[in-house]
């Protein structure tokens, strides 16, 4: 019986401690861009000069299920000469804008840990 309890405890401990972490992330409510620029969870192509806003959302999972996080979420760019990011005043949205031609990666983080990488290519301005 004691062995059974110990085994069950170990299974529960492993489930709680070892199986928790970031589940997935999304870019929610990406605003419409005036040309054929696009941005989605999987990647994007933007013309230089274009901006878009969205809400980054992150879910974690643990033994009890999947939970959306409400704080500690940020978005970073790998190259600010190509793609820039700023927080929106007073809410959880961010604005991303294409500053110059090239490639950059948007990284959504939760408490500093990467939750999602979105590759973005910035091309010359649309005529």
């Amino acid at each position: 019986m004691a062995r059974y309890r110990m085994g069950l405890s170990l299974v529960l401990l492993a489930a709680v401690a070892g199986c928790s972490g970031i589940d997935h992330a999304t870019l929610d409510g990406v605003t419409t861009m005036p040309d054929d620029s696009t941005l989605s969870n999987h990647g994007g192509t933007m013309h230089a000069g274009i901006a878009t806003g969205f809400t980054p959302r992150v879910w974690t999972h643990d033994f009890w299920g999947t939970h959306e996080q409400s704080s500690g979420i940020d978005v970073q760019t790998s190259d600010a000469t190509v793609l820039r990011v700023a927080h929106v005043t007073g809410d959880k949205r961010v604005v991303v804008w294409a500053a110059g031609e090239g490639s950059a990666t948007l990284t959504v983080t939760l408490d500093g840990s990467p939750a999602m990488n979105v590759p973005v290519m910035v091309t010359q301005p649309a005529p």
Partner: protein
Amino acid sequence: MRGQRFAWGAAMGAALVFGCSSSNDSGVLGNGQFRYLCGSLLGDAACTGAGSLSSEVDLPSVIAVGATFQIGYAPNNGSGGTVEGANGYEIVPASDELALASGNTIVAQEGGYVALLARHAGNADVDDFVHLRLSAIQTLQASPSSLTLVAGESQAVVLAAHDARGAPLAGQLACVWQMTSGAGTVALPGTPSTGRVSVQGVSGGTATLRATCGAASVDVPVTVSGSGALDGGTDG
């Protein structure tokens, strides 16, 4: 009263020509309103008619590459209006390739859409943004298209610019004015560099005035009659 009505009508007319509507002024994020400022830049076709009645108009549909313009931003207040005269915001173009800014004065550099971000001065937060379309000048129209002057008389010539799609272009144009024939017949006081010039008849004869803005140019034939006081004539 009649002048005020005329100013309102002219402002409305300019708004119609430039395809403006109040919905153009709302930022994409819904946090504030962007306005096109007419206060200190002369010769901007989007501001024609605004006069002293209004120092700002709705955002124009298209702005000329090479032109200078000014943008203001007012955040929304809690009751659905805007906070007039709000400061603490700077207007930042999304890309220096398309537009360069100094304060709220912006110079269009290249054709395409450019986002203008209203950013809090002192921190990196963005309050809202709006996209404007910039387009190269394809054609110029001079108004009047020709001049007939008496020596000593002055008259203004104003340019209207259009892009390849025929859309009227806003912004204070950057232009070079020169006489291609008839030098000495007319004078251009000062050093005109915008889409508006004052032409002064000097002595009898004909001349051709050429304006070049970007890659487009237009010729304005000028006929001056008489020999005015400016060249030592006897009729003044």
